[in-house]
């Protein structure tokens, strides 16, 4: 069978579950070692690179892909987990792309701008013996993906330049979850509804959290504009050894009258954080970020957990709610939390935070979900405490008799199709994104330690590569954390402007330049100005549509 034929969606239908092939997930988990050794010996990437493309494709077609699979990576133990049939999201994407490459005969070049810390997951082969993600795309569809790396801090600048100059040189652009609304309204992000209907991605079926996550990450005002390739959920990390230490348990009980455990409420968190704050021992209770552009996320977790099921930022008329008692209380707690963190927390960011957590300098911290991927076993960060790091859902509040705990998601590698690129390239650019974000390919690449695109799918959290990379206990906990995740101020135009106003006032409150009440009043006033300038009706519509992205757990 020719490789091309195998990608025809009209060929024999195959179940999407890779387990239907000869190398199932269960069998992989049970006997990865034995089978893996055989596969690695048989198909090293070094050997593959020495072959001609044609010979390699023939080899793959005949030997490497599991039975009934149309494409996917090969050459490493368990590769079949990431292979797919023709009538799957990645299979449909490849079939669509091949229409643009004359069934693989003509090469198509697609330019993709992305954050420099993520490129490795597409360009570096992983695991041993595997091809790189970009190599598989080239091999299967003859689509060459050219990656342009930029710093995350340059994302907005570059995209605003692209908008201002109508620059279409990059077909795919990196975005962030906060920017969906702005880029959609600016005409930068191409509306993807027609492509989604035509090629049926698997986001809804497989995102941990289902369609709510799709709404939160990929949609604005009821339409698709972005493709999420990340899971920047804020998880609470803690040092298990400290919590399980009998002396700590005894002393905590003696001081507070209840058992020491990871806190489930903010009041409880305050006790635990204060208990573990021992600067003379270089130990801090809770080193949540407080610096500009990052620290506000911690305030948000306190704020959104004040309502049942959520405390929203705006009411239905786009009037701010943050100067309510809930906002003031969250701000007071945010200010009080300065007592439990390390010096210079206002200028230190996540690199210092990760380092201190790895050095055992903190009992708790709110971090990205990749904390357990990057710290344990990393000689640069792990000073012997990485193995004790565990994760949890953020603390919360009892509202109307129910405990509400909310994480939030922010930043997040998002990709949009550049509306200013040649129109004929919009569909193939989308298809590349559908392929990359599909369950099979995205699970495979999130396991790759070469970057910080984190899992957002249920399948990834059960995937052996991802679990090995993120640690099984953290992957399991993430299944609980994701459904508790609320958005930052997003899915509306001006999200960053609203956020900057909040961030600036929170910073002033943290440094006692103003009171929490003044901070919230000032933010609310700034938000009203922004809303009036952008247009209240537009914002009301976006807020209404964005409600679908909020958690109800």
């Amino acid at each position, binding site marked *: 069978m020719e490789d091309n034929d195998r990608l025809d969606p009209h060929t024999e239908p195959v179940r999407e579950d890779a387990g239907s092939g000869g190398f199932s997930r269960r069998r992989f988990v049970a006997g990865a070692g034995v089978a893996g050794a055989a596969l690695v010996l048989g198909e090293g990437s070094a050997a593959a690179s020495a072959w001609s493309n044609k010979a390699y494709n023939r080899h793959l077609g005949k030997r490497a892909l599991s039975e009934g699979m149309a494409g996917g990576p090969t050459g490493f133990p368990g590769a079949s987990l990431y292979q797919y049939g023709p009538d799957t999201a990645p299979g449909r994407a490849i079939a669509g792309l091949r229409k643009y490459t004359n069934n693989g005969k003509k090469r198509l070049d697609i330019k993709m701008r992305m954050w420099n810390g993520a490129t490795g997951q597409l360009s570096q082969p992983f695991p041993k013996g595997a091809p790189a993600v970009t190599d598989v795309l080239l091999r299967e569809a003859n689509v060459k993906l050219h990656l342009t790396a930029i710093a995350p801090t340059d994302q*907005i*600048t570059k995209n*605003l330049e692209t*908008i*201002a100059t*109508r620059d279409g040189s990059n077909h795919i652009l990196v975005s962030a979850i906060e920017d969906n609304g*702005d*880029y959609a*309204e*600016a*005409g*930068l992000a191409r509306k993807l509804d027609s492509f989604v209907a035509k090629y049926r991605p698997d986001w809804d079926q497989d995102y941990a959290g289902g369609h709510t996550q799709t709404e939160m990450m990929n949609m604005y005002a009821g339409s698709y504009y972005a493709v999420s390739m990340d899971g920047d959920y804020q998880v609470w990390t803690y040092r298990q050894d400290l919590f399980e230490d009998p002396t700590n348990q005894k002393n905590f009980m003696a001081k507070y009258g209840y058992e020491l455990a990871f806190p489930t409420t903010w009041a409880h968190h305050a006790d635990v954080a204060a208990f573990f704050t021992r600067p003379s021992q270089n130990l801090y209770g809770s080193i949540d970020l407080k*610096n*500009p*552009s990052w620290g506000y996320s911690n305030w948000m977790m306190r704020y959104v957990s004040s309502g049942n099921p959520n405390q929203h930022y705006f009411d239905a008329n786009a009037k701010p709610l943050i100067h309510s008692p809930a906002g003031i209380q969250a701000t007071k707690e945010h200010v009080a939390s300065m007592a439990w963190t390390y*010096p*210079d*927390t*206002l*200028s*230190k960011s996540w690199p210092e935070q990760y380092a201190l957590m790895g050095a055992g300098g903190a009992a708790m911290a709110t971090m990205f979900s990749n904390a357990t991927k990057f710290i344990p076993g990393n000689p640069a960060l792990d000073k012997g405490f990485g193995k004790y790091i565990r994760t949890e859902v953020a603390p919360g509040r009892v509202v109307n008799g129910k405990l509400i705990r909310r994480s939030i998601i922010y930043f997040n590698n998002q990709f949009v199709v550049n509306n200013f690129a040649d129109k004929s390239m919009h569909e193939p650019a989308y298809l590349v994104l559908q392929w990359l974000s599909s369950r099979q390919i995205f699970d495979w690449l999130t396991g790759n330690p070469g970057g910080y695109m984190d899992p957002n799918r249920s399948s990834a959290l059960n995937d052996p590569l991802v679990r090995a990379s993120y640690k099984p206990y953290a992957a399991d906990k993430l299944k609980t954390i994701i459904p508790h995740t609320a958005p930052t101020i997003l899915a509306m*135009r*001006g999200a*960053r*402007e609203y956020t*900057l106003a909040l961030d*600036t*006032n929170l*910073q*002033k409150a*943290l*440094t006692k*330049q103003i009171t929490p009440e003044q901070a919230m009043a000032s933010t609310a006033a700034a938000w009203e100005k922004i809303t009036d*300038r952008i247009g209240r009706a537009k914002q009301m519509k976006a807020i209404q549509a964005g409600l679908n992205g909020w958690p109800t757990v």
Partner: protein
Amino acid sequence: MGRSEAAVGQAVITPGQLLLLFVIAFPAVVAIYISFTGWTPDSGEPWYDAYKFWLWFGNYWEALSGSPFWAAIWRTVVVTVLAVGFEFLIGFGLALLLLKQFRGRSLLTVVFLLPMMVVPAVAGFIFYMLFQTDGPVNAALTFLLDDILNLTGPIHVGWLTNPSIALYSVTVVDIWQWTPLMFLILLSGLVALPDDQMNAARILGASWFHQLRYLVLPMMKPIILIAVIIRAMETLKLFDSAWLLTQGGPGDASSTMSIYLYRTTFIDARWGYASAVAILVLIMVSILAMRAIRPIEAASQETIEELATAEPKDAEIPIEQALDAEALSR
């Protein structure tokens, strides 16, 4: 030159002139146009359709009537006055020290110039590390004031996180980095001073201070003014190191005009408002520059007059005429 030759000459230089005009004028015209509108890139309209969001002087009024703009101006003025003042004092002092020949002078000169060669972003990073609460600056102060002199306890100054101090920390970095430029310009000026007048003063018994007060400073006046103006212009645009150190924070405590503009442009994406602010700043700086240039012109005039009065009284041609190139050619 015949008329046809002049026409050819004009034809040859016209494209260049137009190109130059385009390069200079086009961005300015676009900025002025956008400043009268509420256009932003995320409005979905191209910039040339910004007229659809016409506001007349709305952005200018918002800036001039709002406290964030004036607060940013004030912080910028504080940084500029302090930074340029200290850069001048230290730079001039160093230049005077290195005016005389001594062993190791060349090496010292190179050492003093080193900070200027550091990329501003790197300078920002270096000082970010130095200014940490548990960093070397506080450690050194603790060693001196606590360990040796027993005057204080351990020093825990939040150089970057205390809103009352952060702006001055940013200023210190500018002083460290750009004093060498001031030093270089002033040293060049001092070296070029005429030896005969200095020697004459010395022979006549003028003290070092009198030489400085009545000879060096008056003769250096144009050079000093140029150095101060160059540095003031640059400090008004201070961004790289300040952004790296504090990002304008905590809150907006160290948000200078450049940082305010950056935030407005690239976070708020309010390009119409940002253009208006930029133009207001341009106007203010231009007025300042014009006022600053006047003393230079006056200083130049004084020098010419001094030269004129120094000429013999029985000279056949007045000195003004002698200095006039046309008169000389006649």
